[in-house]
C-alpha cells in the first residue's frame, strides 16, 4: 500500500475520491497544527530533526529517515494492508466476514473505544512537551521527538476513523480530542495515567516502557476487531509503537548501567553521591509507572469487556492466530479477590475476565523486559535487581483499588501502607532530586552524567550524529 504524498494529507486510503471525508479532514488539519504548536514540543520546534516518516505500510522498508522540521512532518492517514477474505476473529460473530462499515447497534460502543484510545495519543505529547528542555543528549532529544510526532500520527489515525465512520458525532469527538488537556483540572484527558506530569527523563523512560506498552496491548486487542478499518489502523500503529517501547527499555537500561558505574566509583557506593540516579529511586519509578499502567486495562471483572468481546469489537491478544475456540464461552478464569482480609481465587466467566487476560499478556511482557535489564545488571557484577511489584500493589482502578497490598501482593493495613509508602513510591524529595539532575546536553555525542551512552545510534548512524541540528 503505497502512500500518496502528493496531497495535502498524505494517505493510503484514496482520500481524493471521498470529497466529504477529505473536506472534514482538511478542516481538522489546521486545528491539529494549532494544537501541535501550542502544546507540542517547545524547544527546537523549528529545527531540523532526524525523523523517520512512513512511506508504505508493507513490512520491511516502510519508513525513510531524514532531517525534517517537526511542524512540517507529514502527518497522514495510513492503514495496514487489507487482509483478503478476513473473517471476524472472535465473539458471537466469529467466522463471519468482517465489517467495512460500523453496525448501528455497536456504533456508540465502538466510538467510545476509539475515543478513549485516541485521547491517549495527544495526551502523551502534552505530558512530554517540556522534556526537550532537559534532554540528556541530542540522541535522546530526537527519540523524544520521534515518539511525539508518531503519537501525533496515531491521533490522525484515530481521527480518520472517527471522521470517516461516525458522522457528525465522530467529527465532534475529533474536535474534542484537541480541546482536552493533560492534567488540566477542568478539561482533563480521559485516563488517569495520562494526566500525570512527565517532567523528568526517568519518568519519560518509565512511561515509554510501561505505559506505551499498555498501548501495544490495547492496539493488539483492537487489531482483532470485527471492524476492519479499525483493525487495519491498529496493525500499522503497532509497527510504530515498537520504537516507543525501544526508547523506554533502552533508556532505563542506560540509566541502570550508569548507576552501576557511579555506585562503584562512589565512596559509599551510592550513585547519588556522584550525581547519578540510585537503584532504589529507579525501583520507585518502576513501581509507580508499572502500576499506573496496570490500571489502564480496566476492571478485572468487567461487563463492558464481556460485551466488547461478544460483539467482536475487541479480540484477545492474537485472537485469530493463537486460539482455536473463538467463543470463549463455558470457560472461566481464576481471579484473585480480597475477601475478609484474605486473598482468595474466584472463578469468573472468561468473557468477563478479558481485561485480566490482556493484563496477563502485558505482565509477562514487562517481566521479559525486566529480565533483560537484570541480565545487564548481573553481567556488571552488582547485586541490585529490578523487581516488578505484584499486580494488586498500588492500584487505583479495578477490584484492588481502595485496599492496600505490599509489593508481594499480601494484604496490609492502612497504617503499614502509610509507613512503607515512601520506601515504595516516589516522594516529593525523590522527584526534586531527579529533577535537579535534569540539565540539557545539546552537544552531539555527549551524554548527561546520570545516563550511559546508547550502544548504537539510530538508523545505523553513529551516536555522535547530529540528530537535531540545533543551529539550523
Amino acid at each position, binding site marked *: 500500500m503505497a502512500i500518496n504524498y502528493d496531497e495535502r494529507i498524505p494517505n493510503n486510503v484514496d482520500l481524493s475520491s471521498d470529497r466529504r471525508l477529505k473536506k472534514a479532514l482538511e478542516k481538522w488539519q489546521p486545528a491539529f497544527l494549532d494544537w501541535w504548536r501550542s502544546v507540542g514540543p517547545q524547544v527546537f520546534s523549528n529545527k531540523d530533526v532526524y525523523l523517520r516518516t512512513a512511506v508504505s505500510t508493507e513490512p520491511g522498508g516502510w519508513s525513510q529517515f531524514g532531517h525534517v522540521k517537526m511542524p512540517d512532518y507529514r502527518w497522514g492517514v495510513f492503514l495496514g494492508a487489507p487482509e483478503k477474505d478476513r473473517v471476524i476473529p472472535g465473539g*458471537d460473530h466469529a467466522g463471519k466476514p468482517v465489517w467495512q462499515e460500523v453496525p448501528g447497534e455497536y456504533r*456508540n460502543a465502538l466510538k467510545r473505544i476509539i475515543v478513549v484510545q485516541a485521547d491517549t495519543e495527544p495526551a502523551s505529547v502534552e505530558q512530554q512537551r517540556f522534556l526537550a528542555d532537559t534532554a540528556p543528549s541530542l540522541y535522546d532529544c530526537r527519540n523524544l521527538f520521534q515518539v511525539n510526532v508518531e503519537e501525533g500520527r496515531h491521533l490522525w489515525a484515530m481521527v480518520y476513523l472517527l471522521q470517516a465512520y461516525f458522522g457528525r458525532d465522530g467529527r465532534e469527538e475529533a474536535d*474534542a480530542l484537541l480541546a482536552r488537556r493533560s492534567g488540566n483540572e*477542568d*478539561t482533563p484527558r480521559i485516563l488517569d495515567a495520562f494526566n500525570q506530569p512527565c517532567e523528568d527523563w526517568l519518568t519519560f523512560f518509565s512511561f515509554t516502557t510501561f505505559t506505551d506498552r499498555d498501548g501495544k496491548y490495547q492496539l493488539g486487542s483492537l487489531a482483532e476487531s470485527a471492524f476492519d478499518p479499525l483493525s487495519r489502523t491498529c496493525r500499522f500503529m503497532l509497527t510504530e509503537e515498537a520504537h516507543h517501547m525501544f526508547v523506554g527499555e533502552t533508556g532505563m537500561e542506560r540509566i541502570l548501567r550508569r548507576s552501576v558505574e557511579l555506585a562503584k566509583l562512589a565512596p559509599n557506593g551510592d550513585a547519588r553521591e556522584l550525581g547519578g540516579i540510585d537503584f532504589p529511586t529507579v525501583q520507585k519509578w518502576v513501581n509507580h509507572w508499572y502500576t499506573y499502567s496496570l490500571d489502564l486495562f480496566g476492571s478485572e471483572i468487567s461487563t463492558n469487556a464481556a460485551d466488547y468481546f461478544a460483539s467482536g469489537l475487541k479480540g484477545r491478544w492474537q485472537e485469530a492466530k493463537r486460539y482455536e475456540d473463538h467463543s470463549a464461552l463455558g470457560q472461566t478464569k481464576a481471579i484473585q479477590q480480597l475477601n475478609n482480609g484474605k486473598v482468595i481465587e474466584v472463578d469468573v*466467566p472468561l*468473557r*468477563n475476565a478479558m481485561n485480566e487476560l490482556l493484563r496477563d499478556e502485558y505482565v509477562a511482557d514487562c517481566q521479559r523486559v525486566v529480565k533483560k535489564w537484570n541480565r545487564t545488571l548481573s553481567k556488571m557484577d552488582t547485586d541490585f535487581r529490578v523487581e516488578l511489584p505484584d499486580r494488586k500493589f498500588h492500584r487505583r482502578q479495578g477490584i484492588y483499588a481502595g485496599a492496600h497490598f505490599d509489593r508481594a501482593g499480601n494484604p496490609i493495613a492502612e497504617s503499614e501502607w502509610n509507613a512503607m509508602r515512601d520506601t515504595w513510591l516516589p516522594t516529593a524529595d525523590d522527584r526534586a532530586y531527579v529533577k535537579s539532575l535534569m540539565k540539557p546536553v545539546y552537544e552531539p555525542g555527549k551524554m548527561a552524567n546520570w545516563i550511559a551512552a546508547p550502544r548504537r545510534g539510530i538508523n545505523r548512524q553513529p551516536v555522535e550524529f547530529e540528530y537535531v541540528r540545533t543551529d539550523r
Partner: protein
Amino acid sequence: MAEFDYPAVNFTTSPDQYKHWKVDYDGEVATVRMQIQEDKPLWDGKYDLKLNSYDLGVDIELNDLVTRMRFEHPEVRAVVVTGGYDKVFCAGANIRMLGMAPHAFKVNFCKYTNETRCMIEEATQQSGQIYIAALNGTASGGGYELALACEHIYLIDDGNAAVSLPEVPLLGVLPGTGGLTRLTDKRKVRRDVSDVFCTKAEGFRARDAKKFRLIDGSFPRSKWSAGIESEARRIAAESAARQSKSGAAVALPGVSITEADDGWSYPSVSVRVDGRIAHILLKGPEDGPSRSAGTWGLRAFRELEDALLRLRLNHLNVGVLILKTEGDIDAVLAHESWLEENCASDDFFYQEVRSYQSRVLRKVDNMAKSVFALVEEGHCFVGTLFELSLAADRTYMFMDDDGENALRLSDANFGAFPMAAGCTRLEARFPGEPELIEKARSAKGEDIEAEDAFEEYGLVTISLDDIDYEDEVRIAIEERVSLSPDALTGMEQNLRFPVVESAETKIYGRLSAWQNWIFQRPNAVGQRGALTLYGQPERPVFDFRRT
C-alpha cells in the same frame, strides 16, 4: 437465575444506622452525600453495590432521611444531593440485584423507590426544602432519575460526566422510576430529543444536556464546589422568602412493633394475617393531641404506613386487606380540628403531619391488593379516617336497629387530602354525580345512618342488617380471594383513578402497566433476556415481533 425467597424487609431505620448516606447540616443548606458501601447490600453476599448503585436497603435510608429532615431540620431550605465518590454520582439501581430478584420484589422495589422520589418532590413543594442534584460525576439510569426528582440539576462539566437513561439499550427495560414521565411532564423535554436520549446508552454530557433541558446548569471542576454552594445559598434564600416557617424541630422515634404468631401490632394499629386475608384494625386516639411525634395523628399514620409496607413486601400471599377502625368518633374529630386550626399558623409541624397523613392515604390508593372497609359498631371512620373507607375498593356497613352505626364527614373530606391526581376521593367516587358531592357537603358534621349512607348518599357499597351482614361479607371476601390476583390488581388500579391524571398517577400507572409487563417478558427476563444476561458473558437474543 432461579427466584429465591428473600428474607423479610425491615423498613425502620435512623441516621445512626445509615450505611450509605452522609448528611451535613449547615444552616439553611443540607448536603446529602450518597456514598454506597459496596459490600453492604440488602441481601448479604448476593451482589455488590458497585459504582454507587442502590438497592432497597439504600432507598429505605434515603426515604428515612427525606422524611426526617422535614420534621427534625425545619431550618433546612435547600438540600444538595451529591455523590460521595469521585467521578461517579450514581449508576442507578443495582442490575445484578434486579436480575436475580423475584418479579414481585422488582415491582415492590420500583414502587418504593418511586414513593421516595415523589416524596422528594413533595418536600420541595410543601416543606420548602428545595432539592438540588449536584451531579459530581455520571448519573445513569436511576441515578439520573433521582436527579429528575430534584427541582434543580447541575452536572459537572469535566468532559466525561454525563446524564443518561440507558435502560432501553442496555437492559431491555424502562427507566421505571419516573424517568420517562419526568422527562416529558416535568422538564418538558421534546419527545424526539427524549427518544434519542433514552436510546443512547452513554447519554449526554454537560453541553448537550443543558441545551436539551436535561440539566439546569453546569460548572467546570475548578468552580464546582463554589458554584454549587452559591446556587444552594441562593435557592435557600428564595425559599425562605417565599414561605415563612417557625416551630422547633420534632424528633421522630422509631415505630414500636410487637410481633405475634399470626401478625404484629403497634400501639394504634394491629395486623392479623389469616391465609390470603389480612385484618387491619386502626384504633382512634386515647389521649388529646400534642405537638410531638407521639400525637395520635402522626404516630398512628406512621404505624399504618409501616404495616402497609410490610404487607406489600413481606406478605405476598395476602390478597385482601380488611380494614376496620375502632374508637371514639369525637376524639378523632377533635384531633382533626386541632390540626386544622394550627395548620393556619406558621408552625411547620402541623402541615407536615397533614402531609404525612395524605401520603399514607395515597399509599392505600396504590396498594396492589384488594381493600375492603368494614364499618361496624364502635368504628371511627369519620372525617380523616373516612378517607380510608373512600380509598377502599368496597365498603360494607353494618345496619343496626337503632341507627347508631353512622358515618360523619368533615372538612377533611373536601380538599385536605387530595389523591395523586389532585382531586378529592369524593370527586373520584362520583365522577358522574356531582350532586352527590354537594349532598355530602351539606351533611358535613351530621350523623349519616347506614341505610342513608347506602341508599341516599352512595357513600358505602352496601349496608346490611344483622340477618345478612356477616354472611354477605364472608361470601364477598371468599369470592375476592378466589379471583385472579393479576386481573384484580389491573382492574382495581383502573377503577380507583377515574377521569383525571397527573404526573404522579402516570408514573405509577405506567410503572404498573408497562414496566411490570416488560419485567415479565422473555426479552427482559428469559434465559436470553437482556436483564438476565446483563453482566454475563453472553449477549441477549430478542423475539423481535411487535404488534
